[in-house]
């Protein structure tokens, strides 16, 4: 395996671990995989920059959630990027059913050291808002 192939496989592992952190609603597990200057972008909303603000945003999304499970449709990398195509399932009211099944693509960019420094999400914001999703703006 070449050095580049090794890095791509490692990056895919880091991104899978980051998304696992969402399933477990563990903000610190997620943030440990990100750089201090990390940028989180929910297209087309304003970018959220820096670990402190991203932590605050992710924690505020986790707060109302009772259960989360991200179904991975596709995960693969190239260079320093990893694409994830997902169905993000959310239970906001604890009824044991998914009130939201958000179809979403997330593009991740990682440093040489394997930390996430940019995360760009693409999905329909109206679907998010009308299916129980909390505010995604600071």
């Amino acid at each position, binding site marked *: 395996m070449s050095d580049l192939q090794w890095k791509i496989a490692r990056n895919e592992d880091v991104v899978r671990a980051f998304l696992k952190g969402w399933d477990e609603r563990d903000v610190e597990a997620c943030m440990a995989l990100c750089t201090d200057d990390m940028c989180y972008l929910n297209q087309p909303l304003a970018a959220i920059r820096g670990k402190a603000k991203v932590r605050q945003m992710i924690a505020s999304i986790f707060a109302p959630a009772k259960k989360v499970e991200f179904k991975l449709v*596709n995960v693969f990398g190239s260079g320093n990027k990893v694409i994830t195509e997902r169905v993000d399932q959310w239970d906001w009211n604890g009824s044991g059913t998914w009130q939201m099944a958000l179809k979403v693509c997330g593009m991740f960019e990682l440093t040489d050291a394997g930390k996430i420094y940019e995360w760009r999400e693409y999905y329909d*914001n109206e679907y998010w808002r009308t299916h129980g999703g909390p505010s995604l703006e600071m």
Partner: protein
Amino acid sequence: MTRDQIVERNVFKVRLFIDAWEALDPDVAMACLSEDIVYINQPLAPVVGQRDVRQIVAGIMKLTHKVRWELRSCFGRGNSVVTERLDCWDFDGKGWGLKLPCIGMFDLDEAGKICGWRDYFDNRMWFDHGGSTLHLD
């Protein structure tokens, strides 16, 4: 073909498809797609098959003065190709009225035709800036 060659062929086909959009040429675009193509603008209902997808694709092109899909990322694995794009649309000849951040995920069949196309973007942004219908009425 090796796995790398298949990915290369698939990426080439997706780029050809994007070129067809920029040329506003529905025939070339549709020739990139399989007979059983499934086109989904998430979270809208799937549009299935050449005839129905052509209606949507040709319909959008007809209402477009000029379009440019800036590729931010384009790479593949297996039979999938991802495109991360900024789709710039000029619907009225007055410049880019819409710059839509978008990810398109493509699946290709064994013959190298696109058989799955799933676009992810903010639908409100599309419709509020002049985008036309994305489903069959």
